[in-house]
């Protein structure tokens, strides 16, 4: 019984052609529709309360494929349509789904396909000094050559009126963070609009995947966003495994879950410290970053890398855990949990901190819903989403995961979701330590068959990560679509900051803490 599939069938009838011999896993529905029905499919999905999870394009000579991936609870459904190469265009779904706004600008900029009816076709990722006809994701584009520079302009959104002024910030920010450009329109202290300009760290990752072997791809996936290295490696690996029918040993899954939860705790600890620090409470930063450091050191001792990078690969994991390791982790968790709980009480009792975080940077539940937000951002704004709950791999399918959902959508809510998630992750790790099954930690893996596709969704610490892989006619990587949670959540920050005061921006930004690298790819 698939709700989304039924909705498509009842709206489009025989126009929607479902296939289950093309894309894996088959639990993710896949259909093709005629181009003029693409928006109708979006309409049907919207009516079923589905979220738009991703939208992307591929080149499958002699045509381009356009894909939209929808999600509703545990269901995913992918709608594909095609367009010819001499008139590359498709109907935009931005008016139905807000997140399509940037996905489609990106498709237009990097693949050169026109989203007809899109309200804003300014290039995205592609800067004004790129040649206009440079479409890196097209097959005939030579990605090894540097691009020539041209003269161009970017049209910023302007605001007029008495006392309105503009503050440009970045790309190089004050501090040790990634680059991006923000432009505020403000009146007095109050922000009336924020426009983000991202793409500074675009490294051509999706294109680079196409020149790699399936095996080497995981190394690149691990570096899409360094702070999420484990989750990205798992997501890539699972997509490859789904295409090759690889049976991953239980123990490997459990180890992956262990790494994933350790990554979640470490990042949440760091974020909580940084958020408090931006509210001028440096004590928390030093305490929490100490706890984070303890975790990273355990990682280094037991798994050989502080961020457990390159320890997950298609087929399983590359490092195991012995009895001594279990003991060490267990002792480490006792220690961290005790300190952490004391710090939470301090956070909770600090009224000056409360003053800064409550009602600041509010993303209302309706807004989050419209933006199809994911991860922490979504859960702080009343949306119950978590792949560990809806699309679990072992041991998540055996655990009753508690997903914290708050509705206030402010900085405090994003703090509190993290607090609860740390507690839950500690519980999960303890469960893993006690119950992890014996056995191999990896299985051999075959090459994917030509003309097939694979899909995966994994809950990284920021939120849902999606990989969609496609094998070309010779079984090589034809396309690797990566959807980091940041790709959707960045717009949330633009929305949340309106009506706040300029000095609260760092605090709001930190509470979202989106990846630039994962977004810019």
């Amino acid at each position, binding site marked *: 019984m698939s709700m989304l599939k039924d909705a498509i069938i009842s709206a489009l009838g025989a126009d929607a052609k479902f296939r289950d011999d093309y894309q894996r896993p088959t639990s993710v529905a896949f259909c093709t529709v005629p181009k003029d029905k693409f928006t109708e499919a979006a309409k049907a999905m919207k009516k079923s309360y589905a979220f738009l999870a991703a939208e992307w394009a591929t080149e499958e000579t002699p045509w381009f494929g356009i894909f939209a991936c929808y999600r509703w609870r545990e269901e995913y459904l992918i709608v594909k349509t095609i367009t010819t190469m001499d008139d590359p265009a498709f109907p935009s779904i931005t008016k139905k789904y807000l997140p399509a706004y940037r996905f489609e600008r990106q498709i237009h900029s990097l693949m050169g396909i026109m989203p007809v009816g899109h309200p804003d076709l300014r290039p995205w990722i592609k800067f004004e000094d790129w040649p206009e006809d440079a479409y890196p994701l097209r097959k005939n584009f030579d990605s090894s050559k*540097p691009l020539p520079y041209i003269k161009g302009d970017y049209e910023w959104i302007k605001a007029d009126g008495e006392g309105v002024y503009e503050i440009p910030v970045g*790309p*190089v920010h004050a501090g*040790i963070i990634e680059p991006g450009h923000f432009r505020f329109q403000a009146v007095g202290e109050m922000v009336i609009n924020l426009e983000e300009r991202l793409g*500074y*760290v675009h490294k051509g990752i999706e294109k680079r995947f196409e020149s790699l072997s399936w095996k080497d791809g995981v190394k690149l996936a691990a*570096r*899409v966003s360094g702070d999420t290295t484990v989750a990205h490696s798992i997501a890539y690996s699972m997509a490859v495994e789904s295409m090759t029918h690889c049976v991953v040993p239980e123990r490997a899954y459990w180890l992956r879950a262990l790494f994933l939860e350790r990554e979640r705790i470490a990042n949440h600890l760091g974020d909580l410290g940084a958020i408090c620090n931006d509210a001028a409470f440096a004590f928390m930063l030093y305490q929490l*970053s100490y706890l984070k450091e303890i975790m990273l050191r355990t990682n280094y001792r037991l798994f050989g890398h*502080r961020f457990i990078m390159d320890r997950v690969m298609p087929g399983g994991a590359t490092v195991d855990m012995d009895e001594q390791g279990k003991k060490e982790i267990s002792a480490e968790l006792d220690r961290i949990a005790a300190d952490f709980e004391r710090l939470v009480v301090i956070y909770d009792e600090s009224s000056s901190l409360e003053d800064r975080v409550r009602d600041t940077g509010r993303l209302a539940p309706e807004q989050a819903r419209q933006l199809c937000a994911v991860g922490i951002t979504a859960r702080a704004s009343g949306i119950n989403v978590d792949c560990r709950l809806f699309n679990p791999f072992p041991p998540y399918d055996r655990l009753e995961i508690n997903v914290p959902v708050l509705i206030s959508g402010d900085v405090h809510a994003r703090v509190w979701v993290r607090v609860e998630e740390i507690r839950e992750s500690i519980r999960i790790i303890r469960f893993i330590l006690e119950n992890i099954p014996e056995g191999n930690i990896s299985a051999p893996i075959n090459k994917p068959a030509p003309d097939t596709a694979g899909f995966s969704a994994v809950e990284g610490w920021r939120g849902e990560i999606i990989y969609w892989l496609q094998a070309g006619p010779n079984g090589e990587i034809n396309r690797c679509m990566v959807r980091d949670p940041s790709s959707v959540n960045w717009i949330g920050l633009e929305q949340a900051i309106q009506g706040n005061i300029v000095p609260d921006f760092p605090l709001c930004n930190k509470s979202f803490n989106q990846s630039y690298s994962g977004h810019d790819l």
Partner: protein
Amino acid sequence: MIRILRQIFRTGVITEDVLTPEDEHIEIVGDRLEEAVKKLFRGSLTIRQVDAGSCNGCELEIHALNNSIYNCERYGIHFTASPRFADMLLVTGPVSRNMEIALKRTYEATPTPKLVVAVGNCGCNGGVFGESYASLGGIDKVIPVDAYIKGCPPTPTALLNGILKAIEGKTKP
């Protein structure tokens, strides 16, 4: 307040001597670093970090230099928000094409003599991202580099070691 004080006392002083676990011969870097900073920079080495296209992994470790275990301030090393006060640029990432201009401008805004340290495998030679339409490769493809710190990402200890070598002027690619 009382809880905060209690927690501070419970934690105590956790700052550690910096050893080099990666090296076979263990040496204490800290003292040498402090001395070099004192001698060459009058006790204060100011660093501006620039992410020229990294995956943000290197940033995590540079951040860690400021935590209370590595506590780089004790050697007189601090991070500044403006390149105009900086003695050293610590640059990560392969230089993305979209960051090229910003990196050059930051370099120009830094007063001479300026030390440039390329951080991470990507900063050294482009790493997994290599050279392409979007990635120009290592930092030295765009601005002159004085020292290189390898690693993906380099550990905080490796970073301190690298910074020391850079100010002692000893590293070669």
